[in-house]
């Protein structure tokens, strides 16, 4: 197995880099979009709450693979050309943003209405109160579950393999089909994923226990 790694380390490393890159892009994107919809879900205006709800329910209830495939195959026929990496990362971002929205919203709810009322009565506007009082506390509460979402995101980035996204899984498939060493290749791939996910999920467990 060591030999297999030495002979193909460049292929594996390209995949590893793409998986990390895609995960980071999707993390940033889904944090921004997810938080946006979480706030939208808690605004007083009913129309925007419904819009947010629809967005979240759609992306939470359709498989990520289907979403990624739609971006890869359907979107180019109407809107713009996308390569596999981009299509996969966009799909990953939108899918994860729905889960992040739910998580952040539960954080906002946990902070409680009293805080909002207090801030408002001190002369802050709704958005000021949100920005300076509610959100900082909400994020502190939801850091462990957000971390778990990030672990899920890294694992889910393996769907890039379906859309030729040159991620770890895709590169692994290529090594496997060239060397015929299927199981050892996937073990190496597995170790790469564990290097990314294990420390993160232990750190989150550690935070939760604190």
């Amino acid at each position, binding site marked *: 197995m060591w030999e297999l790694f030495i002979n193909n380390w460049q292929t594996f490393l390209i995949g590893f880099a793409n998986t990390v890159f895609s995960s980071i892009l999707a993390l940033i994107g889904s944090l921004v979009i997810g938080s946006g919809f979480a706030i939208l879900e808690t605004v007083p205006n009913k129309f925007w709450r419904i819009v947010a709800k629809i967005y979240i329910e759609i992306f939470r209830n359709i498989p990520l693979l289907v979403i990624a495939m739609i971006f*890869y195959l359907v979107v180019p*026929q109407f809107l713009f050309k996308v390569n596999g990496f981009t299509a996969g990362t966009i799909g990953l971002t939108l899918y994860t943003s729905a889960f992040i929205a739910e998580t952040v919203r539960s954080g906002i709810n946990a902070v409680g209405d009293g805080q909002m009322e207090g801030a408002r009565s001190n002369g802050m506007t709704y958005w000021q109160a949100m920005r300076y009082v509610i959100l900082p506390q909400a994020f502190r509460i939801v850091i462990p579950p957000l971390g778990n979402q990030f672990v899920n995101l890294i694992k889910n980035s393996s769907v890039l393999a379906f859309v030729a996204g040159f991620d770890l899984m*895709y590169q692994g*498939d290529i090594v496997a*089909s060239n060397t015929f060493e299927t199981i050892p290749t996937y073990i190496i791939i597995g170790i790469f994923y564990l290097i990314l996910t294990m420390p993160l999920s*232990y750190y989150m467990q550690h935070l939760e226990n604190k």
Partner: protein
Amino acid sequence: MKSKIKRFFLLALALVLAVSLSACESSGQAASSQVNTWKQVEKSKTIIWGVRNDTRLFGLMDIKSAKLVGFDIDLAKAITKQLLGKDGKAVLFQTSSKTKIPVLKNGNVDALMATVTITPDRKKQVTFSDPYFNAGQSLLVKSDSKIKSIKDLNKNGITVVAVKGTTAVANIHKFAPKARVLEFDDYGQCFTALKAGQGQAMSTDNGILAGIAAENKGYSVVGGTFTHEPYGIAVDKGQTEFAQKINQALKELKQNGTYNKLMHKWFDGIPGFSIKEAAR
């Protein structure tokens, strides 16, 4: 606390490695102490064939009947009857380009009749029968495309789509080293990607491309064949007795006319395709 986590993590990694290494070893042993497939097949009166389900004319899932149809499927059934008599059973196990060799190696299927090209690399892994079909690699493009032959692919900025685990990928790298190759899991995905504009040409064997072109207006097979791709029936490495039996059956089917009948059934009137060449 932090150092504790770190230590535990290191221990964890070491354990994973150890477990996986031992798993490798044991799977290696299982392969060497293998059973005689022919004896097993003869006893159970059943052959499990790994076949394609995404390849028109060879092995395709028919939506109406939810059954597999194609030349490979018919030939697999004919060989089964020839080897095991009237009550011999052919079980069809669907595979993709990516999964076909692994499922044969790990013993999920007894034999592969799945448009597998006989190559020196694969010969190290599996044992092949005599060729049952002679294909050659070709190109499928949009009919109005400027690409007319393999030479037109050897440019920067050209993307060719192909299927993971096929000889087509290596051949494109060899004949058109400047082209980028995107690999997909099956021919359906691959053609869909071509259609979505993710590549300018799709490359695989002529028979497979002809099947796609016949069903999809606006796409043509161009440039003739630029490789020679004989398809063989693959059995696990070292199952020579089974391979010989299959060769014998294949020979008998050629003599009694069944093979020829199947050839005409599937490939009559396919544009740009010569039965004579394929059956050679």
